[in-house]
């Protein structure tokens, strides 16, 4: 049986770190805070691995099917009978898998940051925030209640905000963290309303019950949810779409992706942890978590798959033109998450149908490894060069050999070159898409070619191209704490593909055999190699071919370089429409109409008061006259009119 204490400790240890370092860090743990945070997370990681081992190999399976277990669960806030926010722990393949991923990557980042962030003024704060993030992300993963997941969802958002804004005195970072928070917040409203809708139909917030009630066609809750319709879609679909919007926001899906590139203003290890490996895949996780329900609505699933593939494609195209190393990786992240999303969208529920589901989460797993690796490598490079721009780099392979190798492994992995891990997961995704929707399959194929191209464009830019301009005098690749994570992650990125993932994670908990179809893999691999060679041709040595190509399609290039002007569109909507057309009139209305009315009452009173002062004329005879008029008036009124 699962050891509840251990599992509870997994998220709580980082939380303890947050509280301790957050309150006392500046005073008492100025230099030791990194160690404290890392040790706490190390324990977490070990506990997570222990749990995973236990779950997958000891007690998780019942009759060959992985069970959903809720070893801990207590009511946190009861709204009405049956509807309550519970704080609980759910153990099922995806949550356990995520536990391992999150703790592992987080640990890597903790270790890496020990030297990367050394000497920062707010070093303890940094580790406190990392702890907060780890806590929230682990909590999110373990949530047994849809509202609980929302709570951690928000907490993850805020830790992301805090970490992006870590360099708070850089205006860009401030703008970026605001943008990230607000955009995801906007999506979260969708999520929230989705929760409200789903909970209304299901009459519960508990995942297990909710899924049970909304997936059994006989249940009255399900019938209700399906028969109510609004604007042509059933209540259930609406709920799911709204929940997906929340996921899309966090996972930077088109068109809510605009915050992700900017989020790269944060420290690079943070980008590796939050904006590559863990938080951004929360959307995928959310959809996976609710997948049985999603599978009841084809409309929702179709939406997911189209949003996924569009994001994947657009991001890949944009990534080809960007020059900021981290932004390229950010777009790549978005593109890869797009892959995971549409894989879910094309999946069915149960048995062989669920291949997309397994593929998606497999990709999530491998992606976490190789993308974290890419980011950490990029971090080392940036650390060395002190610049984010690819044009400042080149020929670094001699100076940063370990980084170079690691980066190459990651690149090959993401490009889908066998036998690296990305190959296996991507193959599965493509297979699922192929089985389900041929359009998506072809789009995905093109995207994976582009992926290979842009990632190798980056690779060649950094490590080959022009000769190195070395100004840095400090240690080449940082200390051991910077190298160790690279090595560990490289190993992971290289071999993770051989894990029989379907044995562990599948849509319904049963075992899914991974089958490698050599004949099917030919097309994507060739496409990937083409991309690599194209990149090599253009960027291996310094030449003017890229400029020529860019010039030859300057309009197109510019559009892509400007990220399809989506940012500008948002800016227009917020600045021009929300601020100018809603905010300003509202403020004006409040000041002049509502407040004006109040003041008008006052002024009118004064005005009347001034006007009637003539009555008090000072003439005693007039007073008497009013007296007499008063009598006559009263007499007439009460004798003739008002009897």
């Amino acid at each position, binding site marked *: 049986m699962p050891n509840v204490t251990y599992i509870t400790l997994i998220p709580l240890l980082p939380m303890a770190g947050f509280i301790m370092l957050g309150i006392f860090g500046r005073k008492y743990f100025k230099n030791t805070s990194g160690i404290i945070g890392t040790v706490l997370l190390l324990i977490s990681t070990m506990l997570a691995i222990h749990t995973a081992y236990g779950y997958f190999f000891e007690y998780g399976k019942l009759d060959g099917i992985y069970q959903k277990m809720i070893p801990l669960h207590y009511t946190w806030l009861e709204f009405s009978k049956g509807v309550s926010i519970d704080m609980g722990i759910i153990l099922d393949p995806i949550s356990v898998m995520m536990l391992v991923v999150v703790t592992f990557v987080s640990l890597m980042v903790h270790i890496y940051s020990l030297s990367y962030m050394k000497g920062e003024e707010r070093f303890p704060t940094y580790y406190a925030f990392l702890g907060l993030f780890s806590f929230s992300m682990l909590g999110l993963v373990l949530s047994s209640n849809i509202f609980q997941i929302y709570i951690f969802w928000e907490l993850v958002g805020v830790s992301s905000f805090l970490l992006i804004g870590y360099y708070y005195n850089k205006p860009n970072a401030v703008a970026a963290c605001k943008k990230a928070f607000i955009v995801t917040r906007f999506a979260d409203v969708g999520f929230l309303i989705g929760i409200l809708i789903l909970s209304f139909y299901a009459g519960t917030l508990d995942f297990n019950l909710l899924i049970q009630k909304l997936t059994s066609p006989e249940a009255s809750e399900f019938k209700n949810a399906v028969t109510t319709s609004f604007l042509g879609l059933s209540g259930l679909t609406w709920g799911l779409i709204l929940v997906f919007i929340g996921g899309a926001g966090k996972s930077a899906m088109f068109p809510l992706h605009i915050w992700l590139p900017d989020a790269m203003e944060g420290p690079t290890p943070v980008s590796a942890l939050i904006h590559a490996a863990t938080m951004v895949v929360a959307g995928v996780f959310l959809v996976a978590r609710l997948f049985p329900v999603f599978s009841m609505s084809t409309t929702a699933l179709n939406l997911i798959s189209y949003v996924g593939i569009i994001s994947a494609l657009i991001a890949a195209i944009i990534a080809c033109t960007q020059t900021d190393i981290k932004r390229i990786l950010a777009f790549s992240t978005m593109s890869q998450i797009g892959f995971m999303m549409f894989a879910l969208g094309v999946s069915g529920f149960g048995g062989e149908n669920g291949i997309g589901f397994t593929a998606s989460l497999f990709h999530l797993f491998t992606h976490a490894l190789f993308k974290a690796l890419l980011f950490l490598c990029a971090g080392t490079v940036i650390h060395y060069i002190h610049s984010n721009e690819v044009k400042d780099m080149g020929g670094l392979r001699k100076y940063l050999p370990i980084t170079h190798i690691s980066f190459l492994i990651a690149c090959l992995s993401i490009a889908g070159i066998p036998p690296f891990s990305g190959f296996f997961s991507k193959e599965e995704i493509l297979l699922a898409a192929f089985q389900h929707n041929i359009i998506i399959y072809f789009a995905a194929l093109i995207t994976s070619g582009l992926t290979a191209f842009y990632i190798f464009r980056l690779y060649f830019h950094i490590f080959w191209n022009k000769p190195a301009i070395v100004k840095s005098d400090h240690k080449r690749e940082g200390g051991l704490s910077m190298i160790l994570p690279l090595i560990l992650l490289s190993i992971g990125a290289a071999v993770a593909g051989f894990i029989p993932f379907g044995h562990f994670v599948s849509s319904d908990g049963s075992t899914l055999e991974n089958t490698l179809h050599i004949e099917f893999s030919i097309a994507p691999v060739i496409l990937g190699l083409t991309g690599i060679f194209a990149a090599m041709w253009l960027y291996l040595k310094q030449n003017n071919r890229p400029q020529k190509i860019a010039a030859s399609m300057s309009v197109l290039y510019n559009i892509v370089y400007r990220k399809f002007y989506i940012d500008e569109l948002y800016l227009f909507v917020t600045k021009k429409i929300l601020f100018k057309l809603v905010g300003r009139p509202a403020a004006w209305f409040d000041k002049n109409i509502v407040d004006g009315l109040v003041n008008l009452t006052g002024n009118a009173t004064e005005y009347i008061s001034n006007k009637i002062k*003539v009555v008090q*004329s*000072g003439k*005693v*005879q007039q007073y*008497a006259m009013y007296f007499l008029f008063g009598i006559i008036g009263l007499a007439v009124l009460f004798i003739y009119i008002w009897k």
Partner: protein
Amino acid sequence: MIQPGLYQILFISTALFFIGIYGFFTRRNLITILMSVELVLNSVNLNFIAFNKYLWPNRLDGVFFTIFIIAIAAAEAATAIAIIINLYRSHQSIDVENAEEMKY
């Protein structure tokens, strides 16, 4: 000789009342105004006498009232004239229009 009836007397008293009020409204001299008030009071006296005689001959309230009114009118006039004299001292005039300092 024809005995005047109640209505005739009431007519006269009402006329007197309004003449008094008219005087009160239009005169400028304070003394005249005071005299107008006396007219009003006298009209009331007439009223009381008439009611007493024609309507309630066996209740003498009206007659007594009249006597008291005359007395009070005298007291009132005395005070008023004293005040008017003082006003004359300070304003050098007993024109009501000169005593309109306080208003609004």
